[in-house]
C-alpha cells in the first residue's frame, strides 16, 4: 500500500525494499518529464531530502526520499523513457527507515484537495 509525503512522493514496501515514486498530482503539475537524473545504486539517501531530480521541459523538480537508507535499485527504464516517471517507481531503498509523518492515500487525497 502506498504512503505519501507532503512533498508529493509515494513510498511502497515490496520484498523488503522501499520503492519510491511521485504522485499523480505531482506528475500533473510537473508536466512531461524529459530527463530523469537517477541516483546511483549504493548511494545513501536521507528521509525528507532530495534523492534524485526530474526535469520537465519547463522545470526541474527534486524527488525527496521518503526513507533513509541505501539506494538498492533504480528504475533503468526511465533513462530511455523519462515520460513514464509519473507512472512508475523511480528508485528503491534498502535497508530503509521510513520517515514518520507519511499519509495514507485517503489522507493525501484530502491534502492535495
Amino acid at each position, binding site marked *: 500500500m502506498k504512503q505519501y509525503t507532503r512533498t508529493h512522493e509515494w513510498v511502497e514496501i515490496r520484498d523488503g525494499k522501499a520503492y519510491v515514486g511521485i504522485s499523480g498530482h505531482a506528475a500533473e503539475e510537473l*508536466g*512531461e518529464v*524529459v*530527463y530523469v*537524473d537517477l541516483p546511483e545504486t549504493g548511494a545513501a539517501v536521507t528521509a525528507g531530502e532530495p534523492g534524485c*531530480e526530474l*526535469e*520537465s*521541459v*519547463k522545470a*526541474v523538480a527534486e524527488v525527496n526520499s521518503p526513507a533513509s537508507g541505501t539506494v538498492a535499485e533504480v528504475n533503468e527504464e526511465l*533513462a530511455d523513457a523519462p515520460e513514464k516517471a509519473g507512472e512508475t517507481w523511480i528508485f528503491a531503498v534498502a535497508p530503509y527507515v521510513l520517515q514518520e509523518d507519511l499519509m495514507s492515500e485517503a489522507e493525501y487525497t484530502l491534502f492535495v484537495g
Partner: protein
Amino acid sequence: MTERTALYERHVALGGRMVEFAGYELPVQYSGILEEHRAVREAAGVFDVSHMGEFLFTGAGAEQALNALLTNDIRGMADGRVRYSLLPNEKGGAVDDVLVYRINAEKFLVVVNGANVAKDAAHVREHLSGCGFEDISRQVSQIAVQGPRSEEILSTLVTGVLPAKYYTFTERVSVAGAEALVSRTGYTGEDGFEIYCANEDIVKVYDALLETGGGRGLVPCGLGARDTLRLEAGMPLYGHELGEDIPVNEVGLDFAVKLGKEDFLGRAAIAAHAPAYERVGVRVAGRGIVREHCDIYADGEKVGVSTSGTHSPTLGCGIAMLRVKRGVAGALFADVRGRMLPLERVPLPFVGRK
C-alpha cells in the same frame, strides 16, 4: 495587478494552464508543451500574444525621428515591409528588441515586448522628437499562427491577399470578417503569420482558426512551446540574451546594428565598445538540461553564463544559448547544480526550417 487578454475565457475553456507573464494571465500550455511544439513543426499552432505592445509613429518626420532611436536603418523601406531592430539605450545596451512595420512614409507601427511596454513608451517619450507617438497596446490584440500549414489554414478565412514574402505585411485584410493587419512573421522558425486586430474582434478570429485549423492539425499553443520553438530557432529573448547592460554588439545581431547610418541614440557608446562577449549555441553532449543562469567553464576557468536553455523536443537533447568571452577555444562545460555537463558548440539556429 494581473490583466487578462480578450482571449482569457477561451484559454480557460480549452484547458490552458494559466500563469502570470508580462503582467497578463496567459496559458503556459494546453495539451502539453511537447505536443504543441510538434504541432507547430509539423502542422500549425495558434498563440495568443496579445501581451505584446504596439506603438504608432506618425507624421512627415516619422522615419527620421524613429530611425534616430533604432540600431537598424529603416530609411528606404518599402510600404508593407517589416524590419527587426534593437531599441538601444545611451550606453549601448538594449531597452528592447522590436519589429518595425512601415505602413507608409508617414506611419510606422512598432511592435515591442509585452513586459517592456511601459518602459519602452517612457524611453520613447523622453528621446523622441519630430513626430507623433501613440501607444495603442491596450486596443490591439495579437495572435500568431505558426507552422508549415499556416498559409493553407489562414487562407480559407481571408478575403484579400496574404503577405507572400517573409517579413512583409498586408493591412486591412478581412480575417473571419474582422479587419486585421497580417504579417508574415513569427517567433518559431517556421513559416507563419501574426494577426493584429481590435480587441473586440480577436475572439471570432481565434475561434475561426481553431475550427478551420482543427482538421488540419492546428492546436492552441502556450508560452511553453513558444519558448522551446524560439530557442530551437536560435532567436534571442529580451531579458535573457538581451538587456540594458548587455552591449548590442555582443549578441550576434550585427545585421540589425548599422553604425554607418546617420547618428542614433547609443551609437557613440556602441562604436566605442570592443565586443568582449559573444552569443554561442551549444547542445548538451550527454544527458541533462542546461537552463538559464548556469556558469560556463573552459579550461577550469569561468568564461560566461547560459542565457536560455531547455530540452529541445525536435533534437531530443538539451540546447542552450550562452554569453561567453570571445575567443575561448577550449571545451565548454556548464555547472548544473554542481555537476559539470560537457557542451558541444553548434551553429544557430539549432533547428532550421524544412
